[in-house]
């Protein structure tokens, strides 16, 4: 039983990062109707900005992180305004293809600017790891693990409250549910799209920075997380923010069990397979509802 508990704790550790990544994806999708394939790479690019500010310009770490997050916000907003808005009227697939193109462009651009070699990036906090002892052994959680968990929890709560109780939040939710009606009520839906792309991409930047100490900064650093975030979003029904968080945590736990009892190398593949089967049985996602609102 205790190893079972251990697996769950380790799964939650990974899962909180998946949740963070998935939140931005779902936010962007719910408001603008686009699954952003470039999402992970936009965060990757922001992580390089953090690296540049910190390691090359020699500025404090907190400033580097802040710069990257703000950069992420504007990168997201500008992408929506400058690239997607002009082709919104064309077709849905045109927008999807554009995000795929952007994914490759950002990767190439990062290689061009920062070259091949992986860049190290420090943990946001240091200190002795936390040991949780069990009769059969122990789990080690680094301070960064705990920080990721804490930040993810705070961000999710803040986002939830923001969307629930502010005018901007209400505009975003209304636009996500019925774009035409939102327009008719005078909501500037373009601003809502740009805003949610900004917030979503800022989340990707934050996730990339959190993952950076482990992955190091490189053009492919967000490849796995992009897929895991998408999977978490699907698992959560691509619907509500709380559902998405649960989807991320659940995916973390599923992967952990696959890694422990089946195969470490194949954990992503197996996890995807499990999800595929789940979706065949319950297409609206584990926590989603059947609805044809968006797309």
């Amino acid at each position, binding site marked *: 039983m205790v190893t079972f508990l251990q697996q769950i704790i380790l799964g939650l550790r990974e899962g909180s990062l998946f949740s963070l990544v998935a939140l931005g994806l779902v936010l962007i999708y719910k408001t603008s109707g686009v699954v952003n394939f470039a999402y992970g790479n936009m965060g990757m690019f922001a992580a390089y900005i953090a690296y540049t500010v910190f390691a090359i310009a020699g500025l404090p770490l907190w400033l580097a992180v802040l710069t990257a997050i703000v950069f992420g916000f504007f990168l997201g907003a500008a992408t929506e305004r400058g690239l997607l808005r002009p082709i919104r009227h064309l077709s849905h697939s045109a927008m999807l293809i554009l995000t795929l193109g952007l994914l490759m462009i950002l990767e190439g651009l990062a290689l061009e600017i920062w070259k091949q070699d992986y860049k190290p990036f420090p943990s946001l906090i240091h200190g002795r790891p936390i040991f949780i002892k069990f009769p059969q052994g122990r789990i080690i959680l680094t301070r960064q693990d705990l920080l990721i968990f804490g930040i993810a929890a705070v961000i999710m709560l803040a986002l939830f409250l923001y969307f629930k109780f502010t005018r901007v939040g*209400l505009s975003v*939710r209304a636009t996500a549910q019925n774009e035409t*009606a939102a327009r008719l*009520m*005078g909501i*500037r839906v373009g601003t809502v799209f740009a805003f949610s792309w900004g917030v979503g991409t800022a989340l990707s930047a934050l996730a990339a920075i959190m993952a950076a100490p482990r992955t190091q900064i490189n053009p492919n650093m967000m490849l796995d997380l992009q897929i895991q975030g998408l999977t978490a979003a699907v698992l959560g029904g691509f619907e509500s923010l709380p559902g998405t968080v649960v989807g991320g945590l659940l995916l973390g736990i599923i992967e952990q069990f696959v890694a422990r009892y089946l195969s470490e190398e194949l954990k992503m593949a197996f996890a995807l397979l499990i999800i595929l089967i789940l979706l065949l049985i319950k297409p609206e996602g584990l926590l989603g509802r059947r609805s044809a609102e968006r797309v």
Partner: protein
Amino acid sequence: MLEIKNIEVYYGYVKALKDISLRVEEGQIVSLLGSNGAGKTTTLKTISGLLKPKSGSILFHEKIITHLDSSAIVRMGIVQCPEGRQLFPDLSVKENLLVGAITRKNRKQINDDLNQVYGLFPILRDRKNQLAGTLSGGEQQMLAIGRALMAGPKLLMLDEPSLGLAPKIVEQIFELLVNLNKEKGLTILLVEQNANAALRISDYAYILEVGTLTLEGDAKDLLKSELVQQKYLGA
């Protein structure tokens, strides 16, 4: 108050409105009638800025608004209660009403208006925390009208508010429109297929047929007109 001059509107290459001109005077109830597919909804969408005419112009209080986007048009006081209600199904009744007031800043006024809408439709107050999607058809129509009123309209446009509702509720809603017009001086542009009921509360009316205006006149005269009786009132 509102003046449409010779607009032509296309969906792709298909012309949906041909050379439409109409006027709504301040304080009036004006009806736009016509059967399914005539172009009534297209007309309202164009006034609201969701569609742009290929030619012609739209004026509000003598100012050209043809080029404005929908949010600017709402801010000028032209508010639409759309066909099929178009509520936000997963927002609560109260949140739907607050979205109606999203262009306004003064919290106290918004609160006063909220209470006024609850006064007009007490059922909405009882259900204020319920999700809009769970309301009955009649309640949804009330919410759609309440939401439009929350925007503080000078000109309220309603697209087939009677569609799919029981006669008793239709009567109630039309009575409310008359009251809003008489007591608050609200100008109304009413789109209906239910010509009889609409003409009875209107001052003036236009009849649209496959994208062209074929007839207009005082509502009383149209009600008496034999041609209209035969074609639209099923007499």
